[in-house]
C-alpha cells in the first residue's frame, strides 16, 4: 500500500506540471500582447509595460513559465480585470456556493441512486429492472438547463415553494434555512448523475453476483435479501464509492450550467461570466484551481479504492 501510494504520488507530479503548462499557455494562445490581455482594454501603455516586466514577458517563454509558477505557488494568481481584486479571493467568494451545491447534489445522488440501483440489480431481467434502467437513461438524456427551467416554472413561479434564483451565504440572514435556495439547483444537477450511479450500482452488483462466494452464500440457504445486501452490495460498493469520488470532483465544473440557470454565485457561473467579460486572469485561475482539485480528488479516490480493495495495489 505504501509503495502504491508513493508510486501514485510520483506520477501525479509530472501530470500536474504538464497541466500547469497548458493552463499557463492559455493566455499566450490568445492573439495579442499577454500583458495587455491580462490588464484588459482600459490599461495604459505604462501599466502594460510594468506588468510586462513584472511577469517577465520580455523573457523567453520557459522563464515566463517559472515566474508564473512561482507566483502561483505563493498563492498569487494575478488580478481580476473586472473586479480589480486578486483572482484567488474572487474564486474564494464562489467556493461556498459551489461546495454546498456539490454536497447537496451528492446527498440526492446517494439517497436516490443507491436504492434504485440495488432494486434494479436484485430484480434483474424483470419489468422493474427494465423500467428503472430505461428511466435512468432517459434522465441522463435531459439537458440540465431545460430541466432547471421547468423546475423553476413549476416550483418557484407557479407554486411559489422555493426561491428561483440566487443564494445568500449561510452566514447571512436566514442561516441554515438559506439552503432552500439550493434545493432545486441540486435536484437539477443530481438528475443526470443519479442516472449514472443507478446504472453503475446495477452493473457492479450484477458483476459481483456472478462470483463464487455469492453462489456459496446462496447454496448455504441464506435469505436472498441478505445475500443481496451483505454479500453482493458490500463488494459492489467499492466500485460505487470510487464513482462517488469522481462524480464529486466532476460536479464542481458540471455545475457551470446549473449555476447559470439559477443565477448562483458559484465558481461555475464565474467561469462563464469571466469568458463573456474576457476576464482572462480569472479564467486562467479557475481552470488551474479546478484541474488541481480534480486531480487531487481523483488521487484520493484511487488511494481509497486501493485501501478498500487490496488487489488493486498489487497489480
Amino acid at each position, binding site marked *: 500500500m505504501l509503495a502504491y501510494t508513493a508510486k501514485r504520488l510520483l506520477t501525479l507530479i509530472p501530470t500536474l506540471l504538464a497541466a500547469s503548462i497548458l493552463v499557463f499557455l492559455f493566455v499566450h494562445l490568445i492573439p495579442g500582447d499577454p500583458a495587455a490581455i491580462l490588464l484588459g482594454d482600459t490599461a495604459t501603455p505604462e501599466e502594460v509595460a510594468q506588468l510586462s516586466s513584472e511577469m517577465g514577458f520580455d523573457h523567453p517563454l520557459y522563464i515566463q513559465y517559472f515566474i508564473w509558477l512561482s507566483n502561483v505557488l505563493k498563492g498569487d494568481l494575478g488580478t481580476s480585470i473586472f473586479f480589480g481584486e486578486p483572482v484567488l479571493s474572487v474564486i474564494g467568494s464562489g467556493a461556498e456556493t459551489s461546495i454546498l451545491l456539490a454536497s447537496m447534489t451528492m446527498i440526492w445522488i446517494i439517497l436516490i441512486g443507491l436504492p434504485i440501483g440495488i432494486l434494479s440489480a436484485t430484480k434483474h431481467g424483470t419489468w422493474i429492472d427494465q423500467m428503472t434502467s430505461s428511466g435512468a437513461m432517459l434522465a441522463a438524456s*435531459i439537458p440540465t438547463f*431545460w430541466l432547471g*427551467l421547468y423546475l*423553476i416554472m413549476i416550483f418557484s413561479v407557479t407554486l411559489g415553494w422555493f426561491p428561483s434564483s440566487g443564494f445568500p451565504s449561510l452566514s447571512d440572514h436566514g442561516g441554515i434555512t438559506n439552503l432552500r435556495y439550493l434545493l432545486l439547483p441540486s435536484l437539477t444537477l443530481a438528475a443526470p448523475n443519479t442516472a449514472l450511479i443507478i*446504472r453503475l450500482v446495477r452493473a457492479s452488483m450484477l458483476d459481483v453476483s456472478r462470483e463464487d462466494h455469492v453462489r456459496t452464500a446462496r447454496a448455504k440457504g441464506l435469505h436472498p435479501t441478505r445475500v443481496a445486501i451483505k454479500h453482493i452490495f458490500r463488494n459492489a460498493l467499492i466500485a460505487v464509492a470510487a464513482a462517488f469520488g469522481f462524480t464529486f470532483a466532476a460536479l464542481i*465544473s458540471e455545475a457551470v*450550467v446549473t449555476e447559470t440557470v439559477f443565477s448562483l454565485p458559484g465558481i461555475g457561473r464565474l467561469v462563464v461570466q469571466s469568458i463573456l467579460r474576457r476576464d482572462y486572469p480569472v479564467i486562467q485561475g479557475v481552470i488551474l484551481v479546478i*484541474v488541481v482539485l480534480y486531480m487531487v480528488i481523483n488521487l484520493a479516490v484511487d488511494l481509497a479504492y486501493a485501501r478498500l480493495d487490496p488487489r488493486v495495489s498489487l497489480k
Partner: protein
Amino acid sequence: MNAMNFLQAAFAGRRLATLGFLWLVMIAVAAIAAPLIAPFDPLEIDPVGRLAKPGWPNLFGTDHFGRDTFSRAVYGARMTVIIGTGSVVVALLAGGLIGMVSAYFTKLGHFLMRGVDVLMAFPALLMALVLITLLERSVFNTILVIGIVYATTTARILFGMTLKLKGEVFVDAAVCSGVGNLSILFRHILPNLVSPLLVQASFIFAFAQLQAAALDFLGLGLPPEVPSWGNMLSEERIYVTRAPWLLIYPGILIVLSVFSMNLVGDALRDSIDPRFKDDISGV
C-alpha cells in the same frame, strides 16, 4: 458477421431501442429534406405574428421574432446531425488514431498516452469552455471543441482494445508472414474494431448533443442566428411563462434524440464482441 446481421441481432427483441432507431431515421430524413418539409423560412422574421400559439399554419407557434418554430425545429434536426456527425468524426479520427498507434508502437505510445492523461485532467465541459474561449463562435469550432473533448476518452478506449488485439495469434501470424506494421494496424487490427467503434460513435453522438445544447445555452456555442434546438431554448427562455410551448418542443426533441441514441448505443454494445464489452461505457 456483416453489418445487416449485426443490426438485426442488436435490435432483436428490443422494442424501445428499435423505436429509438426509427426516431433517429426520422431525424435524418428531416435533416436531409429540411427545405421540403419546413413550411416557412426558418430565418424569416414577422413582427406582427410574434409569439403565436401552436395552431395553423404555425404548427409549433412562433418565437419572439415571429419565426415559425416548426420550421426552425426541422432545420434544427439538420444542425443535430451536423454537430453529432462532425464531433464523432473528429473524436474517432483524432482519438482513434492516437489510441491505436499508441498501443501498437509502445515507445511513442507511452509519450502520447501521457499527453492524453494530462488532457483528461480537464473536466469535459471545462475543457470545451477553455477551447471555445480561444476560438470564435461557429458551427465548425463547436464541432472541433466537442470532438477534441471526446477524442481523449476515445483514445484511451481504443488504446486498451488495440492492446488486447495485439496479443492475439492472428497478429503474430501477420508479423511472421512479413506484413508491415501499418498494414497490420489498419488492415488486420482495425477491421476487428469496427463494431466497438460504432458503439463508441453512438455514445459520442448522444453526448455531443447535450454538450452542444449546453454551450448554446451559455451563449458560447453556435452563432445565435443558427436554428439549433439549443439556440431555440437559449433565445426563448425569457418567454417561458408567456409562451411555454417555445421551450417544450425543442427540449423534447433534444431529449428524444439523445435518449434514442443512448438506446441504440446500448443495444449495439450488448451485441458486440464480448472481449470489448467492458471497455465502452455509455450513459
